[in-house]
């Protein structure tokens, strides 16, 4: 049961390995060789049971441990003993030390974070300008890269899904859509151009064809589009 508590504190195989190394250092100075690997495997068993998402990363480390151990069991060529680049442990030691470096920094950051949470910046200020009233005090700095990406994802999500089999074309012609538009206008004397497009269209291709149909209708003076001022809403009306 204690496994579960510990597991939540591990941020990956390196973290677990460091934990075991520390733990064993405290308990038994002379570490029995197999202990670390064996304990690691025990944890791994629990991890596999509980946390399938990250299990593969822990398994990878287990494989590394076993590989290192196996390599060490092989008889060493008695060449240049100083040349330790061949030592199978080096890469792992290197990784653990590198990880440890940043783990220490993370601890430092956590301390600073703790301290910083005692201070609050001034927020209760509003600039009241006699002359201009349009300022609502909201900074655009809220639009960061992340927010933009989130909005982008949202918009794309709204785009109607692509048909599963793209070979099949959506049967839509300008003629069809001309009829649709005229029928729609039959019931509504004057409609917002936008509403017409939105209510009549649920596929991008249809949207585009409908748009062309409207333009055709305009050209042949069957409908009129007007606008109160540039960029205002466009109204469409049957002639």
């Amino acid at each position, binding site marked *: 049961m204690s496994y579960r508590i510990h597991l939540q504190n591990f941020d990956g195989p390196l973290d677990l390995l460091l934990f075991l190394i520390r733990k064993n250092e405290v308990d038994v100075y002379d570490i029995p060789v197999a202990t670390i690997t064996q304990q690691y495997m025990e944890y791994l068993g629990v991890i596999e049971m509980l946390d399938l998402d990250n299990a593969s990363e822990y398994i990878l480390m287990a494989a590394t441990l076993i590989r290192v151990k196996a390599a060490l069991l092989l008889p060493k060529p008695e060449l240049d003993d100083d040349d330790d680049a061949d030592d199978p442990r080096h890469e792992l030691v290197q990784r653990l030390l590198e990880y440890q470096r940043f783990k220490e920094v993370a601890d430092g950051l956590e301390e600073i974070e703790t301290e910083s949470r005692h201070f609050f910046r001034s927020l*209760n200020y509003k600039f009241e300008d006699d002359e201009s009233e349009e300022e*609502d005090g909201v900074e655009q700095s809220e639009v960061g*890269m992340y927010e933009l990406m989130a909005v982008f994802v949202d918009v794309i999500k709204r785009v109607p899904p692509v048909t599963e089999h793209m070979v099949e074309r959506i049967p839509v012609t300008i003629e069809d859509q001309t009829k649709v538009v005229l029928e729609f206008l039959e019931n509504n004397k004057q409609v917002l151009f936008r509403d017409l497009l*939105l209510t009549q269209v649920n596929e991008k291709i249809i949207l585009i064809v409908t748009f*062309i149909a409207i333009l055709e209708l305009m050209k042949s003076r069957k409908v009129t589009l007007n606008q109160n001022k540039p960029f205002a809403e466009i109204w469409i009306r049957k002639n």
Partner: protein
Amino acid sequence: MDSQELTEEYKRHIVEALIIANDVPISEAKIASLIEDMTPAQAKKAVDELNAEYSDSQRAFFIARVAGGFQINTRRDMAPWVKKMFKGRMRGRLSQAGLESLAIITFQQPISRVEVDAIRGVNSGGVVKTLLERNLITIAGRSSGPGKPLLYGTTKEFLRYLGVDDIKSLPKPKEIEEIMGKLTTGDGVGENIIEALAGLEDDGVDNSSEATAAVDGVAAPEEKAQAQTHPESDNGQTE
């Protein structure tokens, strides 16, 4: 928090801190509820005393009473400098439409307005104009396709503001998806950004000749007008 009694003076400090740190005007009732043994009337009195202190020590600000409670305001004679500080900042919140169009233009640039419309499913003319005015986007050329529509892209200032040096460093749709997680459309059909955008492109291409030619008739005057209105928008508002 404190078992000892708080002095009147110390309570006044707390009132000051609460007013300064809050992000909305805070009422005397709210202040009173946060400080041990304090009534709203006492909170109000503390504010008056603070204002007297500010006045005596010639602070450049005072506590103003606004609709919802108390808020920090700068002294009236400070306005010219405060205004100067806020001026030239990209102030004011973008509408949802503005944000969406900005997101699409940022990650799909260079892109024509018609394509932005196609993705959003609504007309983006007014929004594009606002973005141009705010120097967030600029005209980035002209499509070589039929109709040669104007293409929009983000300004250097906005890119810098987002934290990247050039367009190439912006995340691509595939990377956005990797960061933000796999997309699922409303009806539960798994779909990714690439497919969604590819679908759009296909649709666009299908009728490019007709659609764009026809669109040209409508869109051209408006875009030309924009080009005239903001000829230097790309380098003009560098501040």
